[in-house]
C-alpha cells in the first residue's frame, strides 16, 4: 500500500464482527501481513493488535523495511509496549544474510551474462526477482522479472515470467501491468490449464478495482471453489501460484455476493442460486451472504439493508472491498429500488418506505435522484405521494424517430443542393478580401 492510499483512507471507528486473530489465520504470507497493516491503518481500535500480529509475522520473513515501519507505527500508538522497540539483532542478522544472498545472486547473473548462456541469464533474473519479492522490494522484483523477457525461449518461459509479473503487479495494484501480462499469456498458442482459475481470480480483482461490479461477479463465479481453498506450501517452490495469495473463499463469497446484489436482476440472481453449483459451494463459507441474496429474491429489502449495515465495518476492513463499499451500497440500494418499482403500475411511497425500513422523505429523495439519473423508470406524484411506472409509448417514440430522420434528411439534402448550386454557379469562397459591407452588429 502506498502512502498516498493511506492519506485517502477512510478510518473506521467501530469494531468489526470478526475476531482479529482468528480472522487473520485464514491468510498466509504477504497476504496476511498486508491485511494486518491495512486494518491497523483503517481501524483505530484494532490498530495495536493488528500491528503486534503484523510484527510477529514480519519476523518470520526477510522484510526488514516493513518490519521497521510496523514497529515505528506501534511505537506511535503504544510507546511502552515492549514489542514497539526494533529488534536490532534480528534486523542486523537478516540484513546481513539478505545482502550476502543478493550479492551472490548478482554475481552469478553477471557471470551468466559473461558466458552468454541465455537460459542461465533468464534463471538468474528470475531468482533475483524472487529474492527481491521475498524481502518486500516489489519494484526491484518487477524489474528483474521483466528482464527475463529477452531470454525466454519457450512458451513455458513466457508463461512463468508473466505469472511472476502478475503476482508482483497485483500486490502493487499495478493493473496496467497485470493487463499486459495476462494478454501475453492469452496470446500463447498453448498454456497450462492449471493457471486458468488464478488468472480468472486476478481478472475479477482487476474488474473490482475498476468498479465494474457485474464483470467482477461474473468473472469470479467461474473460479472453481477447489482453487480457492488451496494454499501454497510453507516451503514455497518456484512457480507456485495460489489464489489464496490474495483472497480466500470467504472473501470471494462476499465480493461475488455484494457485486451480484449491486448489478444482477432478481431473476438472474435466482437463476444463479438455483443452478450454479460452484456459487452454491462458495456461498457455504459465508452464511450471511446467502441470507442477503435470499432476502433479495424474496423482496425483503429491510433485512438486506440491516444485514449490510451490520457487516459494513467488516467490508471496510477488507483490503479489496474497502474502497468500493460506499459505491456498492449505493448500487445495491438502486438495484433494490429498481426491482421494487418494476412490480408496480402504481405504488405508494409510505408502503415503499416501510418495505425498505426508511422514512418516506428518504424514499422520496432517493427516488428523485434515481429518476433524474435515469436509473428507475417511474414518475412521482408528490401531491398524492405515489409513483407511477413509466410505460414506453412506442407510438410516440416511432413518431419522434421518423420526424428526426426526416428532419435530418431535409437539412442535409438542402445543404447538398445548395452546395451543388454554389459549385456550379462558381460561388465558392475564395481568398479575395471581403468588402467592408458586412457588419454583424448592424442589427442589434
Amino acid at each position, binding site marked *: 500500500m502506498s502512502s498516498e492510499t493511506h492519506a485517502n483512507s477512510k478510518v473506521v471507528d467501530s469494531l468489526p464482527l470478526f475476531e482479529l486473530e482468528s480472522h487473520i489465520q485464514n491468510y498466509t504470507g504477504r497476504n496476511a501481513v498486508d491485511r494486518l497493516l491495512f486494518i491497523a491503518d483503517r481501524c483505530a481500535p484494532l490498530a495495536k493488535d493488528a500491528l503486534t500480529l503484523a510484527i510477529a509475522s514480519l519476523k518470520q520473513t526477510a522484510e526488514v523495511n516493513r518490519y521497521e515501519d510496523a514497529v515505528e507505527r506501534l511505537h506511535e500508538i503504544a510507546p511502552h509496549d515492549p514489542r514497539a522497540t526494533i529488534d536490532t539483532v534480528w534486523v542486523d542478522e537478516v540484513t546481513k544474510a539478505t545482502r550476502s544472498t543478493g550479492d551472490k545472486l548478482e554475481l552469478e547473473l553477471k557471470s551468466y551474462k559473461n558466458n552468454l548462456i541465455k537460459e542461465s541469464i533468464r534463471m538468474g533474473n528470475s531468482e533475483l526477482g524472487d529474492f527481491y519479492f521475498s524481502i518486500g522490494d516489489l519494484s526491484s522484483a518487477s524489474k528483474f522479472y521483466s528482464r527475463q523477457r529477452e531470454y525466454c525461449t519457450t512458451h513455458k518461459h513466457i508463461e512463468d515470467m508473466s505469472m511472476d509479473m502478475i503476482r508482483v503487479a497485483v500486490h502493487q495494484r499495478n493493473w496496467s501491468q497485470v493487463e499486459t501480462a495476462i494478454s501475453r499469456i492469452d496470446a500463447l498458442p498453448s498454456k497450462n490449464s492449471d493457471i486458468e482459475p488464478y488468472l480468472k481470480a486476478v481478472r475479477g480483482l482487476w474488474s473490482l478495482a475498476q468498479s465494474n461490479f457485474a464483470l467482477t461477479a461474473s468473472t469470479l463465479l467461474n473460479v472453481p471453489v477447489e482453487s480457492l481453498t488451496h494454499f501454497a506450501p510453507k516451503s514455497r517452490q518456484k512457480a507456485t501460484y495460489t489464489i489464496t495469495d490474495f483472497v480466500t473463499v470467504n472473501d470471494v463469497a462476499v465480493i461475488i455476493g455484494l457485486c451480484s446484489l449491486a448489478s444482477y436482476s432478481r431473476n438472474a440472481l435466482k437463476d444463479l442460486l438455483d443452478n450454479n453449483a460452484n456459487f452454491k459451494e462458495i456461498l457455504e463459507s459465508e452464511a450471511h451472504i446467502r441470507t442477503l441474496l435470499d432476502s433479495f429474491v424474496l423482496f425483503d429489502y429491510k433485512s438486506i439493508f440491516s444485514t449490510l449495515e451490520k457487516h459494513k465495518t467488516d467490508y471496510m476492513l477488507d483490503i479489496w472491498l474497502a474502497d468500493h463499499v460506499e459505491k456498492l451500497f449505493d448500487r445495491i440500494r438502486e438495484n433494490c429500488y429498481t426491482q421494487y418499482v418494476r412490480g408496480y403500475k402504481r405504488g405508494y411511497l409510505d408502503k415503499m418506505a416501510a418495505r425498505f425500513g426508511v422514512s418516506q422523505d428518504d424514499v422520496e429523495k432517493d427516488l428523485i435522484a434515481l429518476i*433524474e439519473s435515469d436509473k428507475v423508470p417511474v414518475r412521482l406524484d408528490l401531491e398524492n405521494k405515489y409513483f407511477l411506472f413509466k410505460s414506453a409509448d412506442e407510438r410516440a417514440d416511432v*413518431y419522434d424517430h421518423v420526424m428526426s430522420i426526416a428532419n435530418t434528411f431535409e*437539412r442535409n439534402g438542402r445543404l447538398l443542393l*445548395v*452546395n451543388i448550386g454554389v459549385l456550379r454557379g462558381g*460561388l*465558392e*469562397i475564395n481568398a479575395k478580401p*471581403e468588402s467592408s459591407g458586412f457588419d454583424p452588429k448592424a*442589427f442589434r
Partner: protein
Amino acid sequence: MDSGTVWTAKFGNQTADVSEFFSNVNRLLDNISGAQAKLVPEHYRALLYMIAGASDAIENPNSLLRPLLNAALSFSPSHDVLSPAHALFLIQALKAKQYKLALQLLKYDVDKFDSAYGLTYQDHLRFHYYGAMVFIGMKQYEKAIEYLSIVLCAPGFPCSMVQIEALKKTILLQLILYGKHALRLPRMANDFTSHSYRAFARAYDHFAVAFENGDPTVLKLVWNQINNIFSADGNYGLALHALTAFRKRRIQKLRKTFITVPMEYIESKDVDILENGPGTKEFVLAMIQDGDLRAQISQKSRTSPIIVVFQDGSITRSHLDELEAKLDSVRQLNEKIAVADRHVGQSREYLSRKLQSASAPGGFLSRGGGLEDLEGYDDSMSMMEL
C-alpha cells in the same frame, strides 16, 4: 435597362418626386427578369445598390423594401435563383425590423446560383446569414439553424468572417433549442474551416460547456466573464435567450421525474441567472401559456399548496398530418436531388474530371461515378446516409 440608368441618375440629382420615383422603380424592377439582368449585371446591381443606399436619405425607408422584394421575386418564376437583390432586401428588412415581409422571400428555398449575374460568394453567404437572422427575429430557430448550416458548409477556402459569425449564432441557437452543442460542424464542412471556427469561437464554446454542465453557479460565473464578448459580437440578445432557455430547461426536466409537484419544489430548483426575470410562479405560468410546458396549475383551496400537474403527450391527428406533410416535403427534396445528380453527371466539368481520373490507374470506370466526385462534396456521405 437604359431606363434604369436614367432613373438612377434622376434619383441621384433629387429632381423627381420621391413617391413617383419609387412607384416607377417598382414597376421597372417588376419587369426585369433574371435573363435581362444577366445582360447588364453591373447596371442592375448598381440600380439595386442605389435604391438600398437611398434609405438614409428619405423619410420612410420602409418604402424601399417593396421594390427590393419585387426585384428578388421577379428575378425567376420559380423563385429559387439567387439574385443580387436577395441579400440587399434582407439587410433593409432587418434594419426596418420587417421580419414578416422578409418571410415572403424566405418562404422560397434558393438553390440556384450563377456568377454571371454579378454575384459573389458574399451574396450567397450574406443572404443565408441574414435569412437566419430574420428567422431568429421570428423565433423560428430550427429554420435559422438550417440557414446558418448552409453558411457554415459553404464550399471554398479560406473561411469567411460571415461563417465565423454564423458559427457563434449556431452555438447559441443550438443551446436554446437542444440544450447542448458539440463544437462540431456538419459533415460537409471542410477541416480547415472546422479548425478556424474553434479558434474564433472559444468563448462561445466555454459558455456551451457551462450550459450543458447544468450547474447554474458555473454558468453564472462564465456569463460574468464573457457576456461582454456577446455584447461586442452583437449576440447579447440571443445569449439572454439562451439563459432563459437554461431556466426553462431546468423546469421542463422536472416533467420527467414528476406527475405532480408542488410549486414550492419548483421554486427550490428554479434559478434565474441574472436575477431580473419574473418569479417562479409567473415564469411557470408563462411557460404553460406559451406551450413550453405541458402542464396545468391546480390549487384545491385558497390555503392549500399550489400544485403543478404535468400532462402526458400523445399522438394526435395534427401530429399525423404534420408527419404526412414532412414526408411529402422529403419526397420532393429527393426528386430535386435526383435531378441535380443527373445535371451534375451530364456537366462538362464532371465529364472532363471523370475522363482525367479514368486515365489514372484505378480510375472512374472501375469506381462507378456520381456525386461523390464533385469538388467539395464529402465523399463519406452517401445518399442513403442522408
